[in-house]
């Protein structure tokens, strides 16, 4: 479904991605772990087409998205749903308007049908009757869930999560993990999550990949990652300051 091939990206002198390779299959949940600032979000933004690679390619169903024209790229990005780290709700719009954003612009649904779909999407994330609230009236956990409702309202094939459990308490973080699993089961979507929260990673992942110094240095099932011989992986998953990773 998604293939990232030899992806390179630099910002000025700083080389962020130095040959990332990965594959996300239909219906699979892939979690990318790594230190803060190691380029996980940059990788995600390449997959959704926000950044153009310096070298390498991102293929979505065989189509290199870096070579698409703007309008064609926007058609491809409508197949994605993305949950942002800070939710990124449009603060000038109500919850209902946020969730219906894509539906109103790019579908032929009537207003009544859109209202039903908004209700349904919000209900899927456990929120009822908040369509008329503004984003500033919501708690952090509610914002994340509205962000997820917005991401799934358009019935995407692929959902991308950028640090879904960051900035919320452990109970809400676990509720988000449950939602991630439920979305995958109900919507049969491919899921790509970037996080440094190992509890979440173990809970939701089919496979886990570790990004370090611009490359995927290890990829495997949660069990394989737990038992990895790679000292960098072991230091990261156990959260130790001592070890081969020095630049923290």
């Amino acid at each position, binding site marked *: 479904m998604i293939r990232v091939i030899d992806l390179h990206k630099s910002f000025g002198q700083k080389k962020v991605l130095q040959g990332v390779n990965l594959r996300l299959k239909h219906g699979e949940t892939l979690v990318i772990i790594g230190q803060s600032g190691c380029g996980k979000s940059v990788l995600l*933004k390449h997959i*959704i*087409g*926000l950044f153009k690679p310096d070298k390498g390619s991102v293929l979505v169903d065989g189509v290199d998205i870096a070579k698409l024209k*703007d*309008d064609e790229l*926007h*058609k491809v*990005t*409508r197949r*994605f*749903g*993305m949950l*942002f*780290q*800070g939710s*990124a*709700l*449009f*603060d000038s719009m109500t919850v209902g308007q946020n969730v219906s*954003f*894509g539906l109103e*612009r*790019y579908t032929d649904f009537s207003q009544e049908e859109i209202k039903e779909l908004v209700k349904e999407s919000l209900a899927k994330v456990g929120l009822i009757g908040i369509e008329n609230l503004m984003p500033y009236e919501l708690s952090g956990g509610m914002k994340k869930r509205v962000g997820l409702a*917005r*991401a799934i309202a*358009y019935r995407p094939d692929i959902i*991308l999560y950028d640090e879904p459990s960051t900035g919320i308490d452990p109970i809400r973080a676990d509720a988000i993990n449950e939602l991630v699993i439920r979305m995958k089961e109900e919507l049969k979507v491919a899921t790509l999550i970037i996080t440094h929260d190992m509890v979440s990673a173990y809970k939701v992942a089919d496979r886990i990949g570790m990004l370090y110094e611009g490359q995927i240095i290890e990829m495997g099932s949660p069990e394989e990652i737990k038992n990895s011989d790679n000292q960098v992986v072991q230091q990261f998953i156990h959260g130790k300051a001592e070890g081969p990773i020095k630049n923290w």
Partner: protein
Amino acid sequence: MLGLLTWSFNLLNHKMFPIAKSPLYYFNSFLQQVGEVGLLFFQTFKNLFKKPWEKRIFIQQLEEIGVRSLPVVSLTAAFGGLVFGLQTYLGFHRYIGPGSETYGGPIISLGLSKELIPILVGLMVSGRVGSAMAAEIGTMKITEQIDALFSLGADPTRYLVVPRTLASLVMLPCLTIYGDIIGMAAGFFYNVYIMGVNRVLYIRNTLLYMELWDIMSGLIKSAVFGVIIALIGCWQGLRTEGGAEGVGRATTRTVVIASILILIVNFFLSKALPADI
């Protein structure tokens, strides 16, 4: 020109002084910024004709740029007209002689409609609306709302820049014609009701020498200023980085760059547009 302005602004910024950079760096920066604005202008123009049209945002912006600017435009146009009327009266009275003040009418109308009102409206709107555009889009940028737009399949230029530029293009001439009326009325009020100039002759001379083209050329200028304000505000908003401090910098830059560009472009437009047709 644009890069030169930004360069001057950066040079005046105290944070830039400790860092010595080569002239080549500034030249590159200049070219890059001119390129960015040129590209944004091109993308905006290209997206003008593509659906879906963001009617709701366009109407919101018409209100924001036009209706909400009325109080500030009324005040500046009124006092601009009054002071222009005062100086014109003094000039005619002192250098031509008593009785010649009735010829102040066409001078006031010409000066206001061709130069003063379009510039005053442009400067006021760049301070009030250009900065607000930069702040709003800049905040959206740093909170990933622009990325969210993209992820939902919306083109940020089409969604954010096009309706603002169109609304600004429409409302600046409207505000200018409104300012022309207020300014001319204020000049008339000062001369006729305060200084006792003959009302009939003042109006007759104004209508005799004033041409529709004088007003039209002011409207053409203000339409250009409208595009400058919206493009600079959106451009600065879209390139905002670095949190709240970055938003503050973007708003300040917008006002400085747009205001100076308005003054410079005004001169060249005055030179390029024919005196009459």
